[in-house]
């Protein structure tokens, strides 16, 4: 049940996507997210979906595994969809009493929902194909230049590693506590919203206690192994920018250009396409 949440999980693999430099993957993911907000029309979305589809295909992470991450935010997607559907003005399609669904609303709701789905899948692809350690190495290296202005890059990266590392642990812990309370007759599924919220107390209290205990144990274990921050710390695996990273970077540039220029390209292609179509019609 609760273990279905896949945010921050890694899917082991040997694919081309897995092997890319994490720094590049982080940047590509950011580019993809920005690109999603630049998309203006239908064709743009097709480009984005196709690009994501290709990367998923190459990564060999089963789609089913990725969709599972969506389950957790299903409510938010539905909410976005419904809100956009009813709140957008324009030509009416159906009217139900005081509320109306417009064509524009439906169009917008669909694309907002799609954007959210792409956003989640795109960013979970990053964590699914990158080991947490590599991810934070990449983070640290990308934040490196900001050390000059006093940004604690190493500490931030370490905090992120720990947070990522403990998401599954805390989920496991929640699962365990839920089971133990269910064995004592606790009921988490029925009753009013208020009741249900109150019923969460037997889970939340032990969970917090566990979280603090884990944090304390970890801090002690790190100190016992002489951890003392980033100063002078060397790496087991140095990050190297390889040929395949260059190829991926170029492909990303191409993708971004396509998204930005997509309307112009379509406009330029339109006359050719139209004449092609009429020629075809004439030939028939």
């Amino acid at each position, binding site marked *: 049940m609760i273990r279905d949440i896949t945010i921050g999980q890694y899917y082991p693999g040997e694919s081309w996507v897995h092997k890319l430099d994490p720094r590049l993957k982080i940047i590509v993911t950011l580019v993809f997210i920005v690109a999603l907000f630049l998309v203006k029309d239908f064709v743009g979305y097709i480009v984005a979906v196709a690009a994501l589809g290709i990367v998923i295909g190459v990564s060999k992470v089963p789609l089913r*595994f990725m969709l599972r991450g969506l389950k957790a935010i299903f409510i938010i997607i539905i909410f976005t969809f419904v809100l956009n559907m009813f709140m957008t003005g324009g030509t009416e399609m159906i009217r139900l009493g005081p509320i109306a669904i417009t064509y524009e609303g439906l169009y917008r709701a669909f694309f907002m929902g799609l954007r959210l789905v792409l956003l989640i899948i795109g960013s979970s692809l990053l964590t699914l194909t990158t080991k947490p350690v590599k991810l934070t190495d990449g983070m640290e290296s990308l934040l490196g230049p900001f050390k000059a202005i006093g940004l604690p890059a190493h500490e931030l990266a370490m905090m992120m590693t720990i947070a990522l590392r403990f998401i599954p642990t805390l989920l496991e812990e929640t699962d365990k506590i839920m089971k133990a309370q269910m064995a004592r007759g606790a009921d988490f599924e029925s009753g009013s919203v208020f009741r249900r919220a109150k019923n969460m107390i*037997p889970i939340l209290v032990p969970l917090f*206690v566990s979280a603090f205990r884990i944090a304390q144990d970890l801090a002690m274990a790190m100190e016992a192994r002489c951890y003392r921050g980033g100063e002078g710390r060397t790496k087991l695996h140095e990050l190297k920018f390889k040929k395949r990273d260059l190829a991926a970077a170029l492909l990303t540039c191409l993708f971004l250009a396509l998204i930005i220029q997509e309307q112009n390209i379509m406009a330029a292609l339109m006359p050719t396409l139209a004449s092609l179509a009429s020629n075809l019609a004439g030939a028939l």
Partner: protein
Amino acid sequence: MSIVVKDLVHTYGAGTPYESLALDKVNMEVADGEFAGLIGHTGSGKSTLVQHLNGILKPDSGQIFIGDVDITAKGVKLTEIRRKIGLLFQYPEYQLFEETVYKDVAFGPLNLGISEEEAEQRVRDALSTVGLDFGKFAERSPFELSGGQKRKAAIAGVIAMKPEVLILDEPTAGLDPKSQADIFDMMARIRAEERIILILISHNMGDVARVCDKVFVMENGRIVLEGPPSEVFSQGELLKSKGLGLPPAAEMIHMMRESGAELPETPLTVDAAVDIIDEYLLKKHDRSLAH
């Protein structure tokens, strides 16, 4: 009431790269009033198995009969099953959450919908059964207790529900000898008074041999050996190959036998071992007199 488990299969994380087969066609029968022991190497599936017995985990396939009710069937009232089957989780102290020990122990009984008065009576009984003084502990915060006291409070929380089957998953792990003895006393008392089914998971062969009527040995999600302790623990080599061992008393007699002493049988308890050695020494003494 009896427990019958048929061809139970359970896979964790089905459909993910972390898939693992935790139970592989487990069959098991525990008769009414029996005290069963469940042993097996770390990760052999013991905890997974017992979590099925009160419907906390759902099997991929297979059936579980509690009495004549198949609890894996659709539409079974799981709350009813959970009332009947008390399960104490491994490291149960992490389930404590209330402000006071009293409230925490009363949590289970109140979930069953009984009155406040009856709940109080049950809390009193349960605390005294596990050996926590009501006056001293009832109003304390469970988070201020020591590890062993927390464990006892958690056990009280389960027995206060008056289950008809009590399953204890490593209840004594990490406790001092006195607390361990307390918990075994408690089990003996419950057994004498209520005649309920008890299932004990433990890595302590000596404990299992001493208290159980029947022992199940698990390995890699299967039950590979079962029978009365005297039979199971007579197969020392087999148990060792499964990452287990013999009770200390049996181990000692086994070693004496290997170094040439003619000892008849494998004892399960220290007392039995003492008897065997006494007899052996007496015989040896007689023989040397006869010479």
